[in-house]
């Protein structure tokens, strides 16, 4: 029993530490539901810290394939996210009509984009720090704009 307890503590401790490290920045959540025949339903939860980590393993040659538009967008996105982190939770854009409701806002350090339309629902939730990490890496490893 003593051996079992020690092994459980070691494995459990390692798992918790690994889990805590992976989940330290929260979760990127993407939900897409299309309400039509053959429409896609995507529900994805990814540990936010895993994405910049995974980007380290992408060969530089693939990073260089970024399109011209993407190269131009990365510094702008970086500047926006860097600034957004300074502000309290805010609703930046809200569009409302009979057919759809679009909302872009920040909430507890995360960027939240919600689109609720009759034929589809899209919800994206991503920590601002993750987007900032991503843009920094893309700027460092991508080709000069």
């Amino acid at each position: 029993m003593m051996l079992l307890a020690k092994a459980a503590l070691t494995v459990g401790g390692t798992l918790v530490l690994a889990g805590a490290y992976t989940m330290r920045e929260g979760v990127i959540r993407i939900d897409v539901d299309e309400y039509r025949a053959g429409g896609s339903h995507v529900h994805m939860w990814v540990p936010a810290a895993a994405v910049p980590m995974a980007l380290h393993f992408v060969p530089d040659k693939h990073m260089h394939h970024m399109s011209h538009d993407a190269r131009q967008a990365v510094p702008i996105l970086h500047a926006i996210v860097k600034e957004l982190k300074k502000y309290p939770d805010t609703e930046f854009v809200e569009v409302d009509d009979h057919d759809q409701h679009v909302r872009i806002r920040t909430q507890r350090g995360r960027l939240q984009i919600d689109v609720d339309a009759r034929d589809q629902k899209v919800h994206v939730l991503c920590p601002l720090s993750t987007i900032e990490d991503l843009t920094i890496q893309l700027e460092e490893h991508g080709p000069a704009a």
Partner: protein
Amino acid sequence: MLDRYKILFARTALIATTALLLSPLGTLAQATAAPASSIQSSSERATTSASKDRWLHVRVISSDAKGETVRVNVPLELAERVLPAIHQDRIHDGKVKIDNAHVNDVDLRALVDAIRTTKDGEFVTVQSNDCDVRVAKQSNHLIVHVLDKQNSKKSEVEIKVPMKVIDALFSAGKDELDLVAALHALSTQGDTELVSVKDHENTVRVWLDSKNVTD
């Protein structure tokens, strides 16, 4: 006695391990709780910015069949910081290039210089059956007021821009408009309504204050 301690340690270790392994579920539960809280009304959700941040608000309310409402809230400082990062077509380093300072044979810079040095007064007043137009300088603001009476449904446009903002806008090179300088000048202004458009179907308001929420 020693065996009792060993058993106690083993039990404690197993309980601690179980607790540690279950703890991430709590984090996940918090993450799932977030969308549920998004059901709250926007007025409850948004917090008022306590700092001296200046916010530009745009609100469009359409009373047509679609009944569209658009609300945009942008911190001026954010716009100031982001604009220099945009390098596209005519926009570079927060400045917009204009082919030359002559637009439709009007020398904009000369016009701005003239307005700046002129005392308060009305520059343009047109009154007709179709529309009324008034362009004036008043309390260091350039005011443009247009009342369209062509249709039975009137429409009204009012633009009020602080002269400091116009000065800053034209403070760059000869053929450039300095958007960042204009935003910076705007951020030093008090709460003010910049644009108001009203017609039978739409109401548009652009205003500046220190709140991060619309009314």
